[in-house]
């Protein structure tokens, strides 16, 4: 067998990433279109040549695994096949088994809800922070920016370890604080054993990790909102809400849309945080999301065929969820 198998192991995450990169390529084209059309008249296909390395990397790094994944989803592909046994073509059996699996649908529903809640919270809090940064005086603003940059830069596993200690049932700071604040008896309270509570912890961590990116992007967009338009609005008697609704929001909407799309993709394929939390507590079979479920199926149980089929389903799901934003973005750019 070839070393490419390694890619199938983490197949679905990579697949969704592929899609994202392709979208971004389109966006890049779209975003850059007006500029380029002016230049093209001056001749030369230089701009296209600049894209060649990126496309080559995509084709080699993502295209091949994607093709393999599609093929494997129609095969019985397990550990024996990985060690050289010829895979058997089984048509749609993987898909049939998958769609008949109640646990799989549970995972899909949980992932969608988790994604929706996390994206909404991240976008709201992130935009909120961006607005604060815009208004705040220099020193607090820089402090806020530095701390957010630090939390964005923190490696996932290091951050997870810190969060695990905070939520530890015996020695955790959170139980200690809640108990000492008189909010109830949280002595040895176990945060991970109930699935809902598990997702609460996961949400706190995922939102904490994603807010800085949203905040910085929104802040960058906010600094570009034309001052004159705001001033004119103020003179015309627009209140703060109206200025937000009719001037600021429309100006930063394209930026927010891109971020929103990324957040949907990221929160749908969230893996490291859930996998880590499952490793330290909780009940894995009740807390699987798409990422950990496919991982357990593929890497854990060596059911690569089934895992590939599921990963392709997730790819389609991601496209459906983000398609409308991509469309909106493209349309916005051509207007």
């Amino acid at each position, binding site marked *: 067998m070839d070393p490419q198998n390694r890619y199938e192991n983490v197949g679905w995450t990579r697949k969704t990433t592929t899609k994202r990169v392709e979208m971004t390529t389109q966006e890049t084209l779209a975003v850059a279109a007006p500029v380029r059309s002016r230049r093209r008249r001056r001749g030369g296909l230089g701009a296209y040549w600049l894209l060649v390395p990126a496309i080559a990397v995509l084709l080699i790094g993502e295209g091949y695994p994607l093709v393999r994944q599609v093929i494997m989803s129609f095969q019985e592909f397990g550990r024996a096949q990985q060690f050289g046994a010829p895979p058997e073509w089984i048509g749609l059996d993987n898909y049939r088994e998958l769609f008949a699996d109640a646990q799989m649908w549970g995972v899909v529903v949980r992932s969608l809800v988790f994604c929706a809640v996390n994206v909404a919270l991240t976008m709201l809090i992130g935009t909120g922070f961006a607005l604060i940064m815009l208004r705040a005086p220099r020193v607090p603003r820089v402090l806020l920016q530095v701390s957010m940059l630090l939390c964005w830069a923190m490696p996932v596993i290091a951050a997870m370890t810190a969060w695990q200690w905070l939520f530890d049932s015996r020695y955790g700071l959170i139980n200690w604080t809640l108990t000492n604040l008189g909010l109830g008896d949280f002595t040895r309270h176990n945060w991970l*054993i109930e699935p809902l509570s598990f997702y609460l912890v996961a949400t706190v961590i995922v939102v904490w990790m994603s807010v800085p990116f949203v905040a910085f992007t929104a802040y960058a967009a906010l600094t570009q909102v034309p001052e004159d338009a705001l001033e004119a609005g103020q003179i015309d008697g627009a209140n703060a809400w109206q200025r937000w609704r009719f001037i600021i929001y429309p100006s930063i909407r394209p930026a927010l849309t891109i971020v929103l799309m990324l957040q949907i993709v990221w929160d749908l394929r969230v893996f490291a945080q859930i996998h880590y939390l499952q490793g330290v507590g909780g009940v894995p079979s009740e807390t699987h999301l798409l990422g950990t479920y496919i991982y357990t199926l593929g890497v854990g149980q060596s059911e690569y065929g089934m895992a590939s089929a599921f990963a392709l389903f997730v790819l389609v799901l991601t496209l459906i969820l983000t398609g409308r934003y991509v469309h909106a973005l493209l349309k916005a750019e051509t*207007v």
Partner: protein
Amino acid sequence: MKLSTMTRAAVVTTVAATLLAACSQGSTTDDPTDDATEDAADEGADEGEATDEAEETDEPAETGGEASGETITLWLAGETDTPVELEEWLVTAFNEETGATLEVQRIPWGELLERSNQALPDPDNTPDVIEMGNTQVPTYTSVGAFEDLSGLLEELGDIGPEGFIEAGTYDGTVYAVPYYWGSRYIFFDKAAFSDAGLEVPTTLDELSTAAIALREAGDDGFSGLWLPGQDWRNGISWIFAHGGDIAVKEGDQWVGALSSPESVAGLTQWQELYAGASTAPQDGKDAEAWVPFNNGEAAMFMAPSWARWSVEETKAEDLGAFALPGVDGGVAPVFAGGSNIAISAQSQNKELAADLMRLIFSDDYQTMLAENGLGPANPAFTELMGDDEFAQAAISAAENAKLTPASSEWAAVETASVMEEFFGRIAGGEDVATVAAEVDGQLADMLNG
């Protein structure tokens, strides 16, 4: 919708950078290509060497006594399980013996299965010799990942334990041999026992009584016996002690045995012990069981022998050990810890790999294993483990230790956390017989592939 050029550029750049970062994440942890170049370079160098080696094996002689310039790779499981002195000795002795270089890589237990899945089938990336947990080995013997060791067995000498050899055997052929064994026993605080006027328990019932008494005598949150809810590796000892099993093979089918009367009796006793004597979390696992003990929050804990070195000095003075007692006295069968070792079927240097195996089973290395508290595969060296209570507890616990079902699908049960969840539910107070019957069904599904 107008977006200023600068914002647009900023957004596009950020997005692109983030995506690139995201793309690279997946490949950082699992890239075993380091050794690819060396192995590839070794190929072809084999031919034409002198073949005056005195030792005879089934393998066609590819290398001679002088194999300088060649390198083979050994994967050791766990960052620290094999002490560094042993690794250094192997590297030096291997070089003296063969002239070739031995490169040792330590693979964390958590990554071992995943990385083996990727590396073992691939001649360019495979380790030549690999250590693997005794319960993980059956997963690989059945798919032809390892070299047939039949021809080498006699040279390796007397080896055991028997259960480990069974785990490494598929269809009557031995593919993986025992590397070392460890055993689980109870560590206890002698002071806590004497303060409470308790004797070392000699039956499982007495253990429960003592543990519950200690818990009641202690502060809120004190454990008589630290027993984490999902710690199935220690928990299954109660099943084994009552004569039960996880799953048994009937004909060519695996059948779950958790709901047998014997297993249910053991699980019920364990459930009562958890409820009465342990304040460990319901989703706790077997990692770092000594932490509450060090903190003075537990009077006993059950762990593999090497846990002794994690007990703090202040506690070490009063630290005692005894093997888990059986239902009617004697020693209960515990879960046998330990590793097997095998030669990869895709190894490009099987002759050198066999040389390494001979070194591992040499008297010198077996002595070093025993002196470092690792149960040596060759039983002649077991007595070198010492005669203090820890060594005695380890040796007697190992005598009738048992393994998990030798199904090639067992690894799937482990990665799906089936046993963790099973014990967690029992710790949570669910009806033992009902849960056991349910999980038996699940085990049958998984173990029969």
